Every structure is written in structure tokens, then in C-alpha cells.
């Protein structure tokens, strides 16, 4: 059987969803039989490959790099899943949304304690005016809420995806937070 080309990506998030993914424990072994992991923060691939079947995206879209990667993922994946609350709702990263970007940077890097770095403008990816959930930037095919979604939720979603079925979670499995 041809293996499903599977990818996971990490935008503006804390990696907690990926940690939770690893909590799949022994199911990871089953999974390894069915999928080929073509791109992931836990696999050292530099460029997002073409012709991916399923991509789980963790994290919100917070800067231009996130935005570019999100668009690349969309263009190169058949199915895109918002993986965890940051991708689904924006979650904690959006707490900065009530402040303007300039005020935020000034407060953190110029008025905050410690050294005040310079030159960040050219090195760091440009922040978006507001942190956005993934589906406001690209079309998303399924949503997997949770902060992080626990292993059971992830398994319920992933097994549906691998079986080619729509992701329909039980109410208990689709709460935010």
C-alpha cells in the first residue's frame, strides 16, 4: 500500500501540540506503517515538499514567515488541519492583538529590562498587525481544537483522515482550551 504523505508544521505556537502528538505513544508505531513524514519540526527537512496528502498545522499566523509558510502548505497539501487552539482560534498569541505592533516592540525591546537589541528589523520576520487564526489566511479542511488537543483527540482526527473520512469529533473532543 502506498504510504500517505504526512506533514506537520509549527507557526506561532508553543510546540505543545507537537508534544501532545508524541503522546500518541504506541500508536505512533501504527502510524509509522501508514504514513511517510515528509515535513515536520521533528524531522529535519528544510523545504516544504510538494504533493503532501495531509498537513497538521500548529500555531497561529503571527508574522510574515508564518504567512508565507501557511500559503506554501496550502498550495502543496491536499488536506490542511488546524492543529490545536492557536491555529484554530489564535489563542494565547492573540493576547498581543489589543496592542499595536510598534507599541508592543517598544514595550518589550526598548522599555523592558535587559539589553536593548538593535537591528531586529532586518533579521526578524515582520510581525503582522494582528495575530490571525490559520483559516483567516488559508482555506482549512478540518479543525482540531484543544490546548493542546490530547492524544485521544489527535488519534480520533488522524485516524479519520487516514481512513479518508471527514473529521467529526465527539462534543467532548472538540472543546476549546
Amino acid at each position, binding site marked *: 500500500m502506498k504510504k500517505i504523505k504526512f506533514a506537520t508544521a509549527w507557526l506561532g505556537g508553543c510546540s505543545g501540540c507537537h508534544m501532545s502528538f508524541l503522546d500518541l505513544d504506541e500508536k505512533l508505531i501504527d502510524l509509522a506503517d501508514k504514513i511517510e513524514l515528509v515535513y515536520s519540526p521533528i524531522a529535519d527537512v528544510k523545504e516544504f515538499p510538494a504533493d503532501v496528502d495531509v498537513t497538521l498545522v500548529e500555531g497561529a499566523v503571527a508574522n510574515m514567515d508564518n504567512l508565507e509558510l501557511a500559503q506554501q502548505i496550502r498550495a502543496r497539501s491536499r488536506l490542511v488541519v488546524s492543529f490545536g*487552539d492557536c491555529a484554530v482560534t489564535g489563542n494565547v498569541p*492573540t493576547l498581543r492583538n*489589543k496592542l499595536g505592533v510598534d507599541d508592543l516592540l517598544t514595550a518589550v525591546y526598548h522599555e523592558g529590562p535587559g539589553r536593548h537589541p538593535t537591528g531586529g528589523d532586518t533579521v526578524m520576520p515582520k510581525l503582522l498587525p494582528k495575530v490571525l487564526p490559520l*483559516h483567516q489566511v488559508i482555506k482549512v479542511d478540518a*479543525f482540531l481544537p484543544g*490546548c493542546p488537543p490530547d492524544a485521544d483527540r489527535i488519534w480520533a482526527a488522524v485516524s479519520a483522515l487516514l481512513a479518508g473520512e471527514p473529521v467529526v469529533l465527539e462534543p467532548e473532543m472538540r472543546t476549546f*482550551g
Partner: protein
Amino acid sequence: MSVVTLTINDELVSAQEGETLLSVLHERGIDMPTLCHLDGLSERGGCRLCMVELEGSARLQAACVTQVQEGMIVHTHSERLVKYRKMILELLFSERNHVCAVCVMNGNCELQWEAAKIGMDHVRYDYLNPDLSMDASHDRFVLDHNRCILCTRCVRVCDEIEGAHVWDVMGRGVNSRVIIDLNQPWGTSQSCTSCGKCVQVCPTGALSAKGATVAEMEKQHNFLRWILDGREKNVWSYGNGK
């Protein structure tokens, strides 16, 4: 009291005259999402989640403020109604900063649970991200406007059950806020009796008790029934209910 017969989702149902449609739906075990309604408080009809279709009526009606009538034909879960309920929940989530992951009520919140139940798994509207404050000036309670959905259960319980009317709503539209006395810090209120009823009826993390962990944050509504039953039986009056 006379009995009326109505049809709910193609099933004949009898009910007491004067009952609200919502209470009949609840008695029948039909799951009807609600946020502003709470048994024991006056009805408000503001959250619009319990909207139902009545045959012969062009408008949708909120079940909580609709009295049952003989021959009424009711549909509670048409495709359109479920879609509207989802949209209303999306609007509520977009309105303020409902970040469940960092909320004291995570896991016990009625808003969170209604969304999960109906399958509202993402919000298609812009999050408004308003800049809202918290008030932790009271010894025992905290008010967090970020989580408030303006259901006014706190206003009603304080007015109708506690009789203090500490709470009310200021402003209008999306700028409405629940307030204490003259929009002052809770800790400085002279009318608040610190009874905590408002905290118990709050469906979200807008009102919470200090010093409790997230797991302990489950709220108790049963006191309302207890007080109202007691009132009805005059248990607190001299010479009665000895």
C-alpha cells in the same frame, strides 16, 4: 390550570398553560442551548440561542419567552436553526477575549460547552480583541470583562434574589459593560453583600472566586431553587414553616 397540546418536532406533547416553551422542551429532554436563561431568574430573551420555528409564524421566536399555546407546531432543530445557533456562538466568541486555554473556567464554562456541543469548532469572523480590564479589588471575587457575554444573570440574581441590585449594565451596544454601583471597583462597593450569588450564576469565567483552582471552579446553581422553594413555602417567615 388547563392543559394544552402542542406538536414539537412532529411529536404530540401536552403542557401546562402558561408554561414557557423552553421549560417544556427541557422537560422533554430536548437539548436546547441557552446562555441568558437560568431556572429561577426572570427571562431575558437576549442570547437568541433558543430560537425555534413556529409554523404559521413568519418570525422565529425565542423559546424562553414564548408561552405554549394550544395547537402550536414547533421545530427546534431545523438546519437553519442549528446554523444560526452556531453563528451566534461564533459572534459571542469573536466579541471579547475568550481564550479558553488561560481561563479560570476552562472545562466548566457554559459558553465553551455550548460551542463544543453544537460543533462550532472555529470562528469565521474577525476577533474584535477589545482592550478590557479585570477587577480583583474584592476580597473574595474577581470580575473579568474579557469573558463576559452580557447575559445579565448577575444583574438579575442580585436584583431578584439577593435584593441588592449592585449590578447593572452601562453603555450600549458592543460597548456595554456590567458595572458595580457607579462603575466603581468591586472592593469599594457599599451595596454589595458579598453573597457570591452572581459568581455562582455566571456562565463563563467573567465572575470567579479567588483562591480556587481551575478544577474547583464548577459553579452551583441549585441554591436558586432552594431559595425560591423556601420563599414559596414561607420557611423564613415568623410563624410559618416551623
